[in-house]
């Protein structure tokens, strides 16, 4: 296995001054609400076995996070920007998990893996609600009108 300089860089621990980007499908957005991004934007599914996906802003911009989504589905996405410091304040961490085939800077929030969520739903739903509020105030990319 050949480890490139690029992947070593992406494996560097996430620092607390960093920001992460979260892709949010329009199904989890409702413009009629005061807090338009819904909690489920931060809900894992059965595929999230290591954690909930985010991207480190130091490696990729908002548009770049959508690169691995089929073009006909890409326009359904918002992207929100979250401070790692804020995540840490509610007990969530961000761990690098580079994906060779995907956009750079992939990382996960391990506390929000599918398994962890199932084991501690109540506390984690409250944290997801807080994430949704922060994300609602920090949307940096919206689907085309």
């Amino acid at each position, binding site marked *: 296995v050949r480890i490139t300089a690029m992947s070593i860089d992406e494996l560097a621990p996430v620092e607390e001054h960093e920001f992460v980007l979260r*892709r949010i*499908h329009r*199904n*989890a957005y*409702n413009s*009629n*609400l*005061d*807090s338009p991004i*819904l*909690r*489920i934007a931060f*809900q*894992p*599914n*059965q*595929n999230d076995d290591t954690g909930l996906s985010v991207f480190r802003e130091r490696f990729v911009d908002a548009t770049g996070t959508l690169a691995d*989504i*089929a073009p006909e*589905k*890409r326009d*359904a996405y918002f992207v929100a920007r979250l401070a790692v410091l804020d995540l840490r304040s509610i007990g969530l961490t961000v761990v690098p998990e580079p994906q060779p085939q995907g956009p750079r800077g992939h990382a996960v929030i391990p506390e929000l893996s*599918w398994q962890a969520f199932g084991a501690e*739903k*109540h506390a984690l*739903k*409250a944290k997801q*609600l807080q994430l949704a509020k922060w994300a609602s105030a920090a949307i940096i990319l919206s689907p085309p009108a």
Partner: protein
Amino acid sequence: MIAVRDEPIEHAQWNAAISRGMNGNGFVAGAASDGWESIAAQIAAMQYLGEDWDGLGAYPPSRELLESALGLAYVLQEKNMAPPSAVTASTSGSVVMVWQGPGETYGEVELTRPFHGEVMIVEPGKDPEYFEIPNA
């Protein structure tokens, strides 16, 4: 939403509402239905979500779950509850009804399987409250 805590939902009532919906209009005459028709239409439209509907591997809600969600809408309308502020499908295949109230008041019911709802209620100055329905 908070009314669900004070006026429990029975499994039999929920099941009867589904049957009512399959035999015509599941909404009860005389109860406030403003907004509920739109919610029911949005739930019905979820049947067209296929595998990988989000391009990232999302799971669609099952037909049984959608029937259950419609039935719950009929039950809540029958109880004269205000319709949710939003209803949507999650990428894990659940259906979530959300009520965002004034201030920081928040309520939701997430249907993770037929006849099983997980309720969360958040009121300012109080710890979040969780319970499951049916709760009678």
